[in-house]
Structures are given as C-alpha cells and as structure tokens.
C-alpha cells in the first residue's frame, strides 16, 4: 500500500511539474507579445527602438503600432547606452526584430541584413528630402525609410553670454575663449559630452575636410583636422569644459540645470529647453575649426529598416509602408509632439507649424544652410576608429598625427572589406 502510494505520488509530482513548466512557458509566450492573446489576428512583428529621452515617445510608438490592423506589432524599447551593440547582436539570433530603427550603414547591406525597400519608397520618392534618399541608397536601391532628421548644434544661455560680454563664437578659437570667460565658480563654460564624441564629425567638416570622399577614400586626415584636434586638446585641458556630468550631451539637463553656459545638443531637446529656460537661449552651428573652414551642422536622425533575414519580411515592409509612408498624421506627431525633429517629407516639413518660429525656425535654417547628412559608407567600425582618435589625442595626449595613422589603418581595413 505504502509502496504503491509513493510510486503514484512520485509520478503525479513529475506530471504536475511538467504541467507547471509547460504552463510557465506558455504564459511567458503570452506576456511576450505585450497584448491580450485573443486580440487581433494575423502576423506577429517585433520592432526595436532605442529609448528616446522625451516624455511620451514610447507610448506614441506603441500607440501607432496598436492602430495597425494587419499585424500584432510588439515594441522593444532599448534603454541601454549602447543600442548599436544590442541591435547588432540581436540581429544574429532567432529573436531578431523584424524591423528596427538605425542609421544608414553599408555593412548591413553588404551582409544582407536589411531588406531593399525601393518598391515602397519609390512612389513617394519626390516628397522626401533628396539628401535623405541619397544617404540610404546603394547601387540604385533604397534600403531604409527616414523617420526624422535631427540637426545637432550648440545651445547657449543668452543672459550668461551677455553678462560675460561674449559674442556668439564663429571660430573654434572664439569658442575656447568664450568657454574661458563663461567659466565661473559654479558654472562651466562649455559642455560637449563627457567623451566629446558628438563633435567629432562637425569638427572635421568645419576644418574643410570630410570623413570619406566621393571615391570612398579617407578624407579626414588633413592638416586642418590635426590643427582642430590640437585645439580640442587645449580646450579639454583648459578646465573650462564640463566633464563627468551625470547626463550625456544628448540630454539638455546640464544646460537646463545651469551646469554650463553652452552645450552641444540636438534639435530634439528644444521643447525641454524652452520649458526650463523660457526664451533665455539660442543656437549656433559648430564654429570654423580653422579660418579657411566653414561652420557645420551634423544632420543626424533615425530611419526604419526591415530585417532581411526575419521571418516576416513582407509583413514588416507592409507595416513600414503603412506607418512611415502613408500615415502622415502619425509622422507629424512623431516629429513635433515630443522632441523637435525635422520631418524628412517635404510636404510635412512645410506644414509643421511648430518649426516655423523662434529658435526652431533657426534650427531648420542651420539644418539647410550648414547641414551634413550621413554617409552610408561611413560605418560603425570607422566611427569607432575616430572616437579612438579623440580618446587618444584629445582626452589623452597622443600625437594627433600618430592617432590618425592608427585610425587610418582601422578604416582602411574596413574599406577594403566593404569596397574591395
């Protein structure tokens, strides 16, 4: 009796355990979709976004997804500091997102990771900013749909500059001088991010150079850039830069909280700055690195891509077409209701009233007048190579020439792999 019982008990325990495990797995699946399991028929899609800093952005992206009837779209909102690494490694797995936002980079096309979107963009191609089409095109095929353009420039406190009798700087030397005059006991003159990475490209452009030339050869290794690096090094060691701030430069908190008088940031931060500082602020482009250079603005931004190796390429393309090409109302909401971004669609950019006045209008002007767009041939490995130049020759005191030589080796290795 007791033996029988214990046998039966053991089995029933196993059975119960197996049942529990199965139930657990099922419920895990259920919660993964982020929606009630009965809701909506059709395909499951996953989209990956980096975490935008502005209030309401996550809800907005999820709201658009919910309004789509032909598929269940789940959003992964990545709060990690390095979205790139998360995205790149996720794309290699079975859990890869079907669609994701990123910047145009050719290695993703060469390795067959992003799908050709020419057929959905072609009908409305003329309504897009030509530069945004160009930066997403390889051999006549368009690989991504631009959602927003984000020009990046300096933001300054008018009252602080007036008090210190400083004019808006137009050269890097003037910027250094301004930083010196604006630095007081509690306020640092200038903030360009803790790692200074956001100003690398503008500094190169303002020195009259470029990352790559038309033939996809190195174009950043010039005497002007070397001079620029030396000036940046001087600025870094001057004690007038805000360093080790709690927030990175994409977040306007340092300026808003009065930790600095001038901060490098992007158009997206305008509503937040307006709330914090009222009208006591203005914007200016990255000043001339050398006298023969030209002021510059980096027109960054985000685009939607479809994972070519995903299980639902067609459904994902349909969704991208629905949201980022057809639904103009959502596109405008996304571009102007949270942070400020310039819509890449000409028709939307013209009707966006919020971007028509004050500093926002000034931002649009800088975007058109001084803007440089992404070069699709300039990839993450090359970006990292130049970040290392700044780490080595600006934050450390390596000879700029030597740091650039080192970057040349890395960039050439990459170029050889991409273009042969």
């Amino acid at each position, binding site marked *: 009796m007791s033996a029988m019982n214990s046998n039966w008990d053991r089995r029933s325990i196993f059975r119960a355990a197996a049942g529990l495990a199965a139930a657990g797995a099922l419920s895990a699946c259920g919660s993964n979709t982020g929606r009630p399991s009965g809701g909506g028929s059709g395909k499951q899609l996953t989209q990956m976004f980096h975490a935008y800093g502005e209030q309401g952005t996550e809800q907005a992206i999820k709201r658009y997804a919910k309004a789509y009837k032909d598929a269940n779209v789940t959003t992964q909102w990545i709060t990690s500091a390095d979205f790139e690494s998360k995205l*790149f490694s996720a794309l290699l797995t079975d859990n890869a997102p079907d669609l994701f936002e990123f910047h145009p980079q050719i*290695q993703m096309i060469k*390795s067959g990771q992003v799908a050709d979107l020419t057929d959905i963009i072609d009908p409305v191609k003329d309504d897009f900013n030509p530069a945004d089409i160009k930066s997403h095109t390889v051999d006549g095929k368009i690989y991504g749909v631009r959602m927003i353009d984000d020009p990046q420039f300096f933001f300054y406190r008018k009252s602080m500059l007036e008090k210190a009798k400083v004019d808006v700087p137009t050269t890097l030397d003037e910027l250094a001088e301004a930083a010196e005059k604006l630095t007081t006991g509690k306020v640092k003159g200038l903030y360009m991010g803790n*790692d200074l990475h956001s100003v690398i490209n503008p500094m190169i452009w303002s020195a009259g150079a470029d990352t790559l030339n038309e033939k996809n050869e190195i174009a950043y290794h010039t005497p002007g850039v070397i001079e620029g690096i030396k000036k940046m090094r001087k600025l870094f060691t001057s004690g007038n830069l*805000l360093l*080790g701030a709690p927030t990175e430069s994409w977040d306007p908190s340092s300026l808003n909280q009065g930790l600095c008088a001038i901060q490098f940031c992007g158009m997206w931060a305008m509503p937040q700055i307006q709330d914090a500082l009222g009208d006591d602020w203005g914007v200016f482009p990255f000043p001339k690195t050398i006298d023969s250079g030209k002021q510059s603005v980096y027109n960054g931004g985000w685009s939607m891509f479809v994972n070519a190796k995903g299980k639902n390429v067609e459904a994902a393309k349909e969704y991208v077409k629905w949201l980022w090409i057809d639904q103009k109302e959502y596109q405008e909401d996304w571009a102007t209701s949270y942070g400020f971004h310039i819509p890449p669609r000409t028709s939307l950019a013209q009707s966006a009233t919020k971007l028509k006045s004050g500093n926002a209008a000034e931002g649009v002007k800088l975007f058109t007048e001084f803007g440089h767009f992404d070069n699709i041939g300039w990839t993450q490995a090359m970006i990292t190579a130049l970040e290392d130049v700044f780490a080595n020759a600006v934050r450390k005191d390596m000879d700029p020439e030597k740091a650039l030589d080192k970057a040349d080796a890395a960039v050439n290795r990459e170029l050889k792999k991409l273009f042969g």
Partner: protein
Amino acid sequence: MSTTTTRDLARPAPAKASSAKPRRGLRGSPTFNFWLFTGPFLIGLAIFVYAPILWSLWLSFFEARFTVTPDKFVGFENYKYMLTNEDFVGSLVTFTVFAAFIVPTTWALSLGLALLVNRLRFMRAFFRSVFFLPTAVSYVAAALIWKMSIFSGVRFGLMNTVLGWFGIDNIAWLIDPNPPWYWLVIVTARLWLQSGFYMILFIAALQNIPDELYEAAAIDGAKPGWQTFRHITLPQLRATSTAVILLLLVAAYQAFDEFFNLLSKTTWGRPPLVELYYKALGESQDYGAGSAGALILTVLICAVTLLQGKIMGFGRGDESK
C-alpha cells in the same frame, strides 16, 4: 584512518539492498547512476562551454563579420591581426598591471579587516555583517554608484564636494586620464565589493589557529603584536592565503563589469575581456578576430595556471598542512 572505517561501514549497505531486490535493472547499475547524476551537468558543460569554444575555434579561421555562420576561410589572418593589434596586446598589459595591484591590496585589506573584527569584544557579528554585505551588491550597481554619485565629475559629486571644502578644484575622475584617477575609482570599487568575502575566509582561518600556539609563543618570550603576528598568525594562515590569492587572480582575470561601466568609450584601462567584447560583440561585430583573441587569451590563461601550479604547488596536497 577514520576514512577507512566509514568506507567499511558504508560498503555492505548497498550490497545488502541489492541482494534483497530480485531484479537489479538499470537503476542499480553504477554506470547508469554515474551518468544520471553527472549527465545534466555534462550536457550543460558541453552546450554552454565546449560547443562555444569549438565554435569560436572554427570562427577564428574565417572572416566572420556580422555573422556567426561565415563562409570565407582566411587561415591565420585573424590571429595575425590580433597579435599585432596594439589595443589587444595593450589590454594584456593592462590586465597584468591591474592584477599586480589589486591582488596584494585586496589580500592585505581583507586580512586587516579580519584581524580587526576578530579582536572585537562586542558587536563583532554586526561588523562582520557590515563588511560582508557589499559582496552581495552587483558589480554593475556598484559601478553606477561610484560613477554617478561618488566620483561624479561635477561639483556636487561626493568626492568633489569633499575636495571643495579644502578649496581644491573639481576633478573629472573618469573622463580625464591624466593623471589616471580612474584607477582609484576602479580599485576602490573592487576593494569595497571583494574584501568582505575574503575577510570571512580569513576570520574562519584565524579562529582555527589553536590558542596553545599563542600561549607557547608568549611563554617563549614573543611580544604580542607584530612579532606574534609575523611568526605565528601569518604562517598559520598560509593555506588560506594561497587559496585567497588564487581566487583573487581568477577574479582579476574575469574583470569586466566595472571596467565596462566605468570606462565606456575610452581606449585605456581595458582588460582583455572588455577589449574582446568591443571587438566581437560590440559595434565592430568581428567574430573572427574576436574568437582568435579569445583563443589566444585561453592559451595564455592555461599557461599561467600551469606555471602557477608548478611554482605554488597548489593542489599537490601537502599545501593544506
């Protein structure tokens, strides 16, 4: 002696049980039981350790960028690239410097704490817990606290506030590598996290030293304090010290979390694992070169471990006496 008796006692027991059962079947077979108990672990080991090692061995001979199923064979190209790569070789140097510093420091600090706590007459349990608690904190959380509140570069960071009282200017601890203040941040974080655990090991060892030894030493005229410590306590702690140093070395080899979190976007202060992370898993996605680097590192670790075994004689058995 005692082990033999237990064995003698234990041996007849299964024999009796098996003779009572008419059918032995699979369950009685020792081979089956061996696999039943080791199987799950071996499977885990094979899937999560050996398969990835073999896979990366395979990857290291291919050009594997943005893919883990490459098709372009490149021979030893990746190895050549990694061995001539200043950053990777530099990271090996970084690791050596870091280990040479952190191992003795942690050893000394945890021994010091153990001695202090062991001498306490009251509230000993309280202090023991207080020093041990940081062990439970994750490296990532600690790194964030160190970065955001203690060693923040702005004027309201804790350290800068303290320096401010003496009129010293703000220091950008983690951002400016000249002078290399970042080592102070990393070393203090690691000391805080680790010392408590090793302190417990030392306390256990201290309590195992027989009082008679101290009495005998006192009778022989050894002065309490340094002399007793040098000639009684320290030699008695030799086995524990060896184990602690070995564990500390292993921990230093595995250094990743705090370096990754405290020194993001730098070219300095990168131990090999962080370097390889950036190479293979990070933004470069170069699994071929990353795997080659990982294998070079594996070979180095094996060599060092074997050498250490030779020198310290760890595991030979006579050590523990």
